[in-house]
């Protein structure tokens, strides 16, 4: 479904060039849920943005559905296959667009017919209900906004969903709702997920396999079961698992 091969991403020019991702290689099978974990600055979100075509300074190979992509140019077909959900639900919805405007624009851009029925369906899918259709973002809570963002991503009926820390800005009880929703949607629509998170427990809950990243490099790729067992091959992985287990008095 998604292959990333020797991906390098950098920002700026020498001597200020920052290598955000170096030699990242992984593959995600159709229907799989793949996690990218690491601390801030490890380059995990950058990989998602490069795949989505939001960054143009990268080299290496990215393939979606066995079709190679280049630069920031993506064709119509790509957007019908790949969609993304962003971290901050307060920044990912246009402040002047109502839910209706957001969803109908997304549907129209995909050349869909029957917009009214589809909007109702999308809102039902993400558990919002039709009463929310004409609300503006400021009339929604964080969790509701994230549901709208998920509905927007689903409008194109994609098969691969890129999730960039979809719950880290939310309260834990809302996080549980969104994670359940994402799990349901994946089962219902046969979706493939690539999920970025700094929260190991969330990734272990959601993902079959995951890559641990540090300083722009993939340290190791392991299964969710191995993560839960604390069976990291690398020192860094073990350190990360130990640190996220919580605080123990020194």
């Amino acid at each position, binding site marked *: 479904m998604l292959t990333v091969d020797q991906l390098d991403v950098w920002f700026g020019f020498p001597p200020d060039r920052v290598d955000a991702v170096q030699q990242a290689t992984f593959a995600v099978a159709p229907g799989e849920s793949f996690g990218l974990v690491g601390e801030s600055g490890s380059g995990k979100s950058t990989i998602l*943005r490069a795949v*989505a*075509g*939001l960054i143009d300074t990268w080299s290496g190979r990215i393939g979606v559905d066995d079709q190679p992509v280049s630069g920031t140019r993506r064709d*119509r077909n790509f*957007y019908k296959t*790949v*969609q*993304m959900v*962003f*971290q*901050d639900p307060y*920044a*990912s*919805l*246009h*402040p*002047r667009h*109502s839910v*209706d405007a957001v969803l109908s*624009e*997304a549907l129209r*851009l*995909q050349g869909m017919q029957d917009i009214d029925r589809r909007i109702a369906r999308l809102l039902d899918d993400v558990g919002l209900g039709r*009463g*929310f259709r*004409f*609300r*503006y973002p*400021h*009339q929604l809570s964080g969790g509701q906004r994230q549901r709208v*963002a998920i509905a*927007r*991503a689903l*409008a*194109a009926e994609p098969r691969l969903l890129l999730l960039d820390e979809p719950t880290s800005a939310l309260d834990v009880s809302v996080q549980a709702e969104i994670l359940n929703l994402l799990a349901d949607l994946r089962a219902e629509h046969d979706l493939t997920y690539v999920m970025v998170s700094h929260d190991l427990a969330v990734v272990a809950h959601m993902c079959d396999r995951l890559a641990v990243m540090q300083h722009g490099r993939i340290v190791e790729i392991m299964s969710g079961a191995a993560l839960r067992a604390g069976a990291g091959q690398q020192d860094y992985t073990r350190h990360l698992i130990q640190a996220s287990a919580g605080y123990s008095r020194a």
Partner: protein
Amino acid sequence: MSQSRDMTRREWLLSDAPQTRRQARLGAIYQGWLTFRANKLAMLGLIILVILIGMAIFAPWLAPQSPFTQNLAGRLQPPSGEHLLGTDALGRDILSRLIYGSRITLFIVGTVALIAPIIGLFIGTVAGFTGGWTDQVLMRITDIFLAFPKLILALAFVAALGASIGNAVLALALTAWPPYARLARAETLTIRNADYIAAARLQGAGPMRLLIRHVWPLCISSLIVRVALDMAGIILSAAGLGFLGLGAQPPMPEWGAMISDGRTYILDFWWVAAMPGLAIFIVSLAFNLLGDGLRDVLDPKGTKE
């Protein structure tokens, strides 16, 4: 639906769960109105401007006399029952001239307020959104315009085009756009990298669509505020051009030109220059107050709370 009948109109407008697109839109407008109304000074500004517009529309009925009828026998009369604000050097009723002059003022302000921000919005957002060479070229042109003092540049334009009210408006509009372009570009630069733009891009939205549907609505509100605050300056520039004889031509009752006429008598017959001056002052103030109120309503940074 039976439920909505029980609601008052206010509740319907303030509903957090609007049922239709129309209700949502009207609700948003009503919210804005409530915020605006809370600002007493802004309301004062709005009332003054409504009166000004009323004056311009109903000038022929409101003016006690013709603004052009001269009466050399009754020249330079002080304010009295017959001439509430006195008469000028040609014996024309100053009140009537002020009332008719509001038409000219509104024409100037309205036209400039329409042309300048639109040029500025277009150039600024295109520059900010496209970046690279386009940005460089457009912004250097803006800088060239900004490098000249506004009034001098307007003077040069009018001198080249010929003195008339139309050319004065054109000159003012052409010199007023660069600050709007700068503002719009700065806004665009912050909006450009927002997640919701990235999300729209991932829906396959092209640059034109992003610019018009996503960037413009966010830039326009801060431009409107800026325009309202700049109006006072534009009125003053227009009056300045009139004062220098490069705007409205006699006998048009333009306020700036009226001050200019009264200048020779300012020590002995103060009202001839003071009355139009007062009018300019009040209207400029009203626009400033209005701008402040609009900022409360429209500034996206203020609405976060």
